[in-house]
Structure formats: structure tokens, C-alpha cells
């Protein structure tokens, strides 16, 4: 989906609040609850297998855009994780709000997602490809800034993964390799581009032979 989480290339943001090598990275967590965000996420995704990480990503994308923008990172993880526990019937929204002592905003409803394409011959390193001009209402891992763009295959992964546009909706997902596709900076951002190239890791189903 073309959500506000799809931030690549969005203009109007200020400086990154960091000077290279100037900041201590410990302690890893800054608030006494932050460790719970990833812990309870991986409890659900890995140990309990109630949902998968694609669904978690999509749950965060389904937060109201105002909530997404106003919430710090681990708050978004908590909100997305809680949304899935509720949607999967493990917990109820009412009990979460009772325990929290106030409103506990969850994600907006999800749609159906979409299956992977039919199997096609794989691409090879050096192939020119075009990112499909698809408009996907649900979860996808194709950032908007490469839609319809031409690039070159640098690498095909030796492992296959579930197609996220299906997996992110909890439906069966075909396994596909992904490709490291290099796009010329000027093809993405015109003369304002400052990188020689941007490499995006794209599922096979997002690509067509150029």
C-alpha cells in the first residue's frame, strides 16, 4: 500500500539527529518498557506462532497515519503487536484498555492481500528488469519510489521467502527468491539524486523482464 510508512524520498524532513560515531549506543533501551515491544512481538511471531513478521509490519502500516507519525518507534511496535493479538482472538481490545487504564489505539482493518504470480523463469544477474506498475491496496514490500522503474539485477538470493503481499495478510504465500536490483539515482530522483545508485531487494513477483 502507498501508506505514509513508505518514506523513501519523502521531502520536508530535517536533519538526522546523530553525528557519526558520536553517540553511545548503550544502554540499548532508553525506557523501562521498550524491551517489551520486540519481546512480545517475537513471542507471538516465533514462539506462539500466532502471526508472522510480515503481518506485524502490515499491522503497523495499518495504524492511523496520525498515530504512526506521532508515535515513537517502539510505541508503533507495541501498537502493531497488540493489534495482531486482538485480531487473532488471543486477547480482547477491552481487556487491553482496562489493563492500560485508558485508550489503546489499534490498527485499522486489513484487506485480503493478494497471491504471488504464477511461477516464471527466474532472472539472472545482469538482467534488466522493470518493477511492475502495480497498485497494491494491501501489504507490499515494493517501495513506491521504484514503481515502474528500470533496474539491473546484482544478485539473486540463494534462499526463497514467502511472498509478503500474501504473508502479510496471513494467507498462504508462495516462496520466491528476492533480487538485489540496482537503480540509477537519476532514474529515481532526476537531477536531484545524490546517490550513484540505490539497490532495492525485491521479490521475484514484483519484477518483469525489461
Amino acid at each position, binding site marked *: 500500500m502507498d501508506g505514509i510508512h*513508505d*518514506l*523513501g*524520498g519523502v*521531502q520536508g*524532513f*530535517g*536533519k*538526522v*539527529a546523530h553525528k*557519526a*560515531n*558520536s*553517540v*553511545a*549506543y548503550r544502554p*540499548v*533501551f532508553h525506557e*523501562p*518498557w*521498550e*524491551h517489551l515491544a*520486540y519481546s*512480545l512481538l*517475537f*513471542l507471538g511471531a516465533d*514462539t*506462539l506462532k500466532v502471526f508472522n513478521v510480515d503481518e506485524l509490519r502490515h499491522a*503497523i502500516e495499518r495504524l492511523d497515519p*496520525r*498515530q504512526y*507519525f*506521532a508515535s515513537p518507534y*517502539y*510505541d508503533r511496535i*507495541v*501498537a502493531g503487536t*497488540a493489534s495482531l*493479538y486482538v485480531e487473532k482472538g488471543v*486477547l480482547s481490545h477491552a481487556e*487491553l484498555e482496562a*489493563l*492500560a487504564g*485508558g485508550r*489503546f489505539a489499534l490498527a485499522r482493518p486489513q484487506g485480503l492481500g493478494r497471491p504471488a504470480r504464477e511461477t516464471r523463469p527466474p532472472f539472472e544477474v545482469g538482467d534488466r528488469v522493470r518493477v511492475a506498475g502495480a497498485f497494491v491496496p494491501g501489504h507490499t*514490500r515494493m*517501495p513506491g*519510489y521504484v514503481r515502474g522503474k528500470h533496474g539491473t539485477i546484482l544478485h539473486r538470493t540463494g534462499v526463497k521467502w514467502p511472498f509478503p503481499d500474501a504473508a502479510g495478510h496471513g494467507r498462504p504465500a508462495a516462496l520466491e527468491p*528476492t533480487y*538485489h536490483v*540496482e537503480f540509477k*539515482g537519476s532514474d529515481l*530522483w532526476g537531477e*536531484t539524486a545524490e*546517490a*550513484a*545508485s*540505490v*539497490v532495492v*531487494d525485491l521479490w521475484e513477483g514484483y519484477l518483469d523482464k525489461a
Partner: protein
Amino acid sequence: MSGPILEQAPVADRARALEAALRRRHLVPEGFVEDFTRLMEQDWAPENGARVVARAWVDPGYRDLLLKDGTSACAQFGYVGPQGEYIVALENTPTLQNVIVCTLCSCTAWPVLGLPPDWYKSFEYRARVVRESRSVLREMGLDLPPEVDIRVWDTTAETRYMVLPFRPAGTEGWDEAKLASIVTKDVLIGIARPDPAAGGTGGGLRGGGY
């Protein structure tokens, strides 16, 4: 309209509520949160990636393996686990700087880089580095000469990247531990280059210096 949407119980209370709701259903195994938190706070650390880089600098065979199969090379040190199942090392040269980002969320190679730092997760970094790479790096303290190309890697699928910096002049004769001491988290993400002047006397965990 924005007010009510943003009004919620404090995130600390919501995170604790999620934990409490899962615990009273006996869904949280004994010690699970503590163990996972130890992994996040201690085991996954940029010192791991630094050791990998230092080994690659002194051992050409290991370097070849790292560039061919980063996952196996990291596994030789025991650096495996979630968000580290498919690791690809990106080789810098004097005229090429690789930079890692995740524009859609904040994917990072946890076992070798540690959890992503705050700035990496910021909207500013995610939005800008794919488009205004050179300006962003300059603002953060890495002022690259024009002859250095920038290649940005967007972590949109399951590949997890680490940057393999080139070994700087002035480090001749250093042992692996001393070499590792100049490979910081920022170096492994690609927003800094190793600084020989910062070389410590040994490896291990360092304090606030990075």
C-alpha cells in the same frame, strides 16, 4: 480531529497491559522476556560485526567467504539468529561508499550490528538517505569527496546487510582486536569510515565511545 486520535494511555502502560494480558493467559514462558532482552541488550552487538570485519582484513580466505556467503562467514563466529538468516556484506572501496537503510520500517542485521539505533529508525534518515545521500552523510559528519560514489541499500526484503569498510592506511601491523576497535556501528551501517586515530588497545565492549 487529530487530538482524539492521538489521545491514549501512556505507552508504558499500554506495553505493560499487553504483557499482563498475555501473562494471565499463561502465554509467556518462564524467563522468555528476560532471555530475549539479554539477547537484544548483550548478545547482538556491533562488536560482532567489527570482529567479522577485522578477520576479513587479515584473512583473505575469510574475506572471500564473507563476500560470497556472509551468512556462513558470520556463523563461524556464532553470529546467527533472527534478522541474521541471510547476511550480505557490502564491500567499500576508496571510490565507493555503501550505505544501509530500511525505508519501509527499520530492518537491520541484529546479530552482527545490534538493534538499529534511534537515528536509523528516524523518519529523517529513512526519507532522506535514498534521495539526498551525500547531504545526509555530510550533515552526519562523513563529507565524502565527489569522486566517491554512494550506493544506498534499501533493506526491503529478507537480506540483512553489513558494510565491509576498506582497511585504512595507518593500521599496518595491528592485530584483529585493535582493528576491530575502529569498526563502529556507524561504520557497519555505512555512515562513517574507520578512523585509525580512534584505534584502542584491544577488542571487547567499549564504553560511550560509539
